[in-house]
């Protein structure tokens, strides 16, 4: 493919066993990468290798297997530290995923530091995972949840944000890249403005971590959270990056083994970072395999993958715009390889069913962003999202299948 230069997409596809399967008799075209990415064989092998060669509980045992498992687990933490540009592995906490990371912060930070009348600011673009935990803690602490509005294209109203900031602003929790629309939010500016009021800022990196270069120190955020399964890693593992002083000031989220230094019935002292926030036996296998996902990205290079994805996005955007009655939601310049669209007179669910019968996996519905859909006045969208292994040919298949589906429906 000349437009793709030296990017060898076939060699990349060869690393993903699932991409050679058929769906309903057709070649799978997987365009639901914003929901979860497929796994390269290196990630699958890392899981198998762990369970077949050095499965052991970590940090405590003194035998060889425990040593190997601990070292590999901690190597994953170091890989994550580099992946997000943190300065210490103490600032990297393993969780189940973005959702648990946000809940951890909302509980451990929110319950200790929020007071009645304090304000938490989120945006209109948030995933439910960055809404509900804040509603829960706000209700408990009698704090107030405020929402930065957007325009009809999904662009944040930064003037409105500025006017919301004040001495009562204690926490700002914003999505870096909208999962529903793909829009990249100006998080640097949000962080800078929020810090002028000494508010703490969490960036939901569930969608940005796989596409954008992340350096939490340059960004200046206080927390950055993401899920392993969206960066070609396994499900069940996620990350909470937190600034050391904040993590130190926060009480533990859960109690149990691993997170303690010394337990007496009268009093328990807690372990140091990062173990203070990793109670119980962690998800060792998936944490270990997460490194294989990160290595996959690093080996090709995020910038190289991004360039490929941008080519796909541009091509798909142009093609889709030719379809009569189709409207791209969030058709802005600053976005990642996600296209969300609606077609006049067509319910997204009908499209999903007909596309599925043609081997194409897209996401339809509200994308766990019901308030956003409500704001945009739509029931949902159809969303195609591209990853390192997608091809121009697959977009042609999508466009053809879409045309065929619309002909059947209209």
């Amino acid at each position, binding site marked *: 493919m000349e437009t793709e230069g030296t990017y060898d997409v076939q060699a990349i596809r060869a690393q993903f066993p699932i991409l050679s399967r058929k769906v309903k008799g057709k070649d799978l075209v997987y365009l639901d990468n914003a929901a979860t990415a497929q796994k390269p064989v290196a990630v699958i092998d890392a899981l198998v290798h762990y369970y077949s060669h050095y499965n052991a509980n970590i940090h405590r045992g003194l035998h060889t297997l425990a040593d190997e498992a601990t070292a590999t687990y901690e190597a994953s933490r170091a890989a994550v530290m580099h992946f997000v540009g943190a300065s210490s592995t103490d600032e990297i906490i393993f969780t189940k995923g973005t959702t648990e990371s946000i809940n951890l912060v909302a509980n451990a930070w929110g319950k200790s530091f929020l007071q009645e009348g304090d304000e938490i600011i989120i945006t209109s673009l948030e995933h439910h995972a960055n809404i509900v935990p804040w509603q829960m803690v706000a209700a408990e602490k009698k704090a107030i949840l405020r929402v930065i509005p957007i325009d009809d294209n999904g662009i944040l109203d930064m003037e409105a944000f500025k006017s919301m900031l004040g001495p009562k602003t204690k926490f700002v929790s914003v999505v870096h890249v909208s999962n529903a629309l793909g829009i990249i939010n100006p998080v640097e500016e949000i962080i800078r403005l929020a810090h002028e009021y000494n508010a703490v800022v969490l960036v939901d990196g569930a969608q940005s971590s796989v596409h954008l270069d992340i350096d939490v120190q340059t960004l200046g955020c206080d927390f950055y959270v993401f899920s392993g399964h969206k960066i070609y890693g396994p499900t069940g593992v996620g990350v909470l990056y937190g600034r050391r002083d904040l993590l130190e000031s926060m009480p533990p989220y859960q109690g149990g083994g691993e997170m303690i230094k010394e337990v007496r019935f009268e009093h328990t002292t807690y372990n140091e970072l990062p173990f203070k926030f990793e109670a119980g036996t962690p998800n060792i296998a998936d944490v270990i395999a997460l490194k294989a996902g990160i290595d996959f990205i690093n080996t090709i290079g995020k910038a190289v993958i991004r360039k490929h994805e941008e080519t796909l996005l541009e091509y798909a955007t142009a093609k889709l715009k030719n379809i009569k009655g189709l409207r791209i939601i969030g058709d802005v310049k600053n976005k990642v390889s996600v296209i969300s669209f609606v077609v006049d007179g067509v319910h997204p*669910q009908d499209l999903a069913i007909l596309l599925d019968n043609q081997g194409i996996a897209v996401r339809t519905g509200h994308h766990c962003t019901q308030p956003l859909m409500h704001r945009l006045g739509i029931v949902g969208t159809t969303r195609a999202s591209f990853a390192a292994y997608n091809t121009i040919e697959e977009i042609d298949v999508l466009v053809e299948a879409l045309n065929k589906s619309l002909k*059947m429906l209209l």
Partner: protein
Amino acid sequence: MTNHKTIKNIEQELIDDFSLFETWEEKYEYLIDLGKKLAPLDPAFKTEDYKIKGCQSSVWIHSHEKDGLVHFAGDSDAIIVRGLVGLMITVLNAQPAKEIVNAPLDFIDTIGLSSHLAQTRSNGLRAMIKQMKMDAGVLG
């Protein structure tokens, strides 16, 4: 009640109809057509009370009893689901409550629709059937 067709009779007719289709496209065109032809539900019933929860599209089912038989009307904002509503009304409408509650409805597998509809709850078919049976149970 001379020409009364049982649920089984109607299921068999549908199985015969569907056996003529060779491709998934034909099955869906049939459903879409059924969806387009379904009489719209009285807006008075298009309310939260009659809405079936747990579907990606909105589905409404209204039922009433007349002369010992249960009558259904329904609607959806998605056309294929509307077709499914139409299909289920074709099979279950104007039948005795007990028959509706006890109908195994295995024609759905036989006509090969279940393999074409994603198994997730979002397709709404399962929820729809459950609601119709529950309504029949209450009315019967």
